[in-house]
């Protein structure tokens, strides 16, 4: 065989090598390619000069060139470097923050996001100051929803103090759709309720007066149920699902964050004028009354309160309460924030010892190190507490849905204990994690760090090594007392 097959062979080999060289890190690429090309050149010429260049040896050489990909991959993903990376990376402060952030994002990707944003987002109702919620007061005997509805419809026609009224009755329900069975709250509402709230459906329509007679099995879904059962299907109108084993037809979907008296209602159905035989305590009644826009909200509330107390059709032992929708929403948010702040302060007071140790063992001298140390601690702890809060809200929401469906248990003692336990664990971990970090680069020490008590530290009797792999820190040599 002559020069030509060798040139062709080398051409192919060099192209393979150049292709493989893209895998090699840029800084090592030239030398890597030089070595491989040199080897191939020598091997090819050796084969030709020794008369061994044949189809078989050509294929053999090409096969060897494919091995360059494995070598190049080794250069890119050096096993020792990769192992070292997996050993070192989890100890860095960045990893810690990223890991907590990732957990937070995962938590926020689910339903808690809607709770959290629902708490912060203003209610999507028109003029919530003049919109009053009528509710059955605590410890008051149960009231049939039909009684309240009839009174509301009557009083909204007769009284000058009311520009519009609507009634509803809510209950825990089971909804069965394409995505399975779900525990939700459902409500029967009078047709004018959505107009009174100023809510426009994101799909389809809400109820009309004619629906009471012609469409008793119509239903309007909340955004959450539309998401969970139909995965935001735009063609959901006209489809059906089962609400407490009764087939209902979907006529509309509401926009997100539409709450009814701080409750997340999943399915709405029409509240007909005819009464239906209901067991006591089966449904809970409520009503919404809108005061005229020109009236002062506080005065309007007082006057409406008088009107409610004079209602003849409501049993005398039933106590009704009244609150504006804005106050109801903000009362809930305020109580949440107050409870959160109280829980946090109590926790900080309870954990003063670990905090004191954290202060006494914090870096000294270099202002940048001190700043980074405390900022990292604050960020890590804040993110952890946020994650705990979201988990608590979600757990409480699930518990609330199963036990009656109000969002108020968030402020209940049970929820507070849950948050305390979670927050104590989170803060304890955060402080422990901080003790075991380099005071300069904030990397976790490889070996366990055993810090002495605060007093011991002042007396310089701890004898603890505070040196990380990077050589930062202080190698403490205990003094002879």
């Amino acid at each position, binding site marked *: 065989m002559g020069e030509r097959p060798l040139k062709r062979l080398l051409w192919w080999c060099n192209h393979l090598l150049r292709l493989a060289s893209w895998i090699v890190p840029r800084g090592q690429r030239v030398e890597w390619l030089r*070595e491989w090309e*040199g080897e191939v050149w*020598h*091997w090819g010429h050796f084969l030709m000069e020794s008369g061994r260049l044949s189809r078989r040896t050509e294929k053999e050489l090409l096969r060897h060139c494919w091995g360059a990909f494995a070598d190049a991959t080794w250069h890119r993903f050096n096993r020792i470097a990769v192992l070292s990376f997996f050993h070192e990376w989890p100890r860095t402060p960045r990893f810690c923050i990223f890991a907590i952030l990732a957990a937070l994002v995962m938590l926020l990707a689910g339903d808690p996001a809607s709770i959290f944003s629902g708490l912060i987002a203003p209610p999507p109702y028109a003029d919530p100051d003049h919109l009053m919620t009528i509710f059955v007061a605590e410890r008051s005997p149960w009231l049939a929803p039909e009684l309240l509805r009839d009174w509301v419809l009557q009083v909204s026609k007769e009284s000058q103090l009311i520009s519009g009224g609507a009634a509803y009755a809510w209950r825990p329900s089971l909804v069965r759709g394409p995505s399975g069975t779900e525990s939700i709250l459902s409500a029967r509402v009078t047709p004018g309720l959505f107009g009174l709230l100023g809510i426009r459906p994101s799909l389809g329509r809400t109820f009309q007066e004619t629906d009471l007679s012609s469409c008793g099995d119509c239903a309007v879904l909340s955004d959450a149920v539309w998401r969970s059962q139909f995965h935001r299907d735009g063609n959901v109108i006209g489809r059906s699902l089962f609400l407490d084993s009764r087939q209902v037809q979907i006529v509309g979907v509401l926009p997100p964050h539409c709450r009814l008296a701080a409750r997340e209602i999943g399915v709405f159905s029409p509240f007909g004028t005819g009464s239906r035989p209901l067991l006591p305590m089966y449904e809970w009644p409520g009503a919404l009354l809108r005061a005229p826009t020109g009236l002062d909200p506080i005065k309007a509330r007082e006057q409406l309160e008088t009107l409610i107390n004079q209602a003849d059709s409501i049993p005398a032992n039933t106590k009704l309460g009244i609150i504006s929708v804005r106050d109801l929403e903000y009362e809930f948010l305020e109580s949440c924030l107050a409870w959160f702040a109280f829980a946090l302060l109590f926790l900080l007071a309870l954990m003063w010892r670990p905090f004191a140790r954290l202060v006494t063992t914090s870096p000294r001298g270099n202002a940048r190190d001190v700043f980074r140390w405390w900022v990292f601690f604050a960020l890590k702890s804040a993110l952890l507490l946020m994650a705990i809060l979201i988990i608590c809200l979600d757990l409480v929401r699930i518990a609330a849905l199963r036990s009656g469906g109000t969002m108020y248990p968030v402020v209940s003692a049970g929820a507070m204990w849950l948050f305390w336990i979670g927050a104590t664990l989170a803060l304890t971990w955060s402080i422990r994690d901080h003790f075991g970090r380099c005071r300069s680069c904030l990397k976790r020490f490889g070996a366990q760090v055993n810090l002495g008590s605060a007093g011991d530290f002042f007396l310089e009797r701890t004898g603890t090594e505070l040196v990380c792999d990077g050589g930062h820190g202080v190698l403490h040599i205990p003094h002879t007392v």
Partner: protein
Amino acid sequence: MNDTPKLSYTSALVLQTISSGYSYGFDIMDVTGFPSGTVYPALRRLEQLELIKSNWETEHTAFAEQRPARKYYRLTREGKETLAKAIERYTLFEQLVSAEKSKRR
């Protein structure tokens, strides 16, 4: 504490081959019968562990002979010590490479 790295069979054989005088990649492949995808990463690892050392032949020599320069590998002192320990574990090594060497002659 014994700091000598534990070598795999492949790495030890590559080390023994270099020790026997085969000092560049394709020659080692030819003697050991290992594919290039095994030999080269093994060479990189041994070099990283400082058991072998590589050096380019001078451009002057390569230019004079009208060919590209080659990279040669040789054992370091640590490499020799490690190989001696590996030979104790893999007793057939010396025989294998010596047999191959005499066959090629």
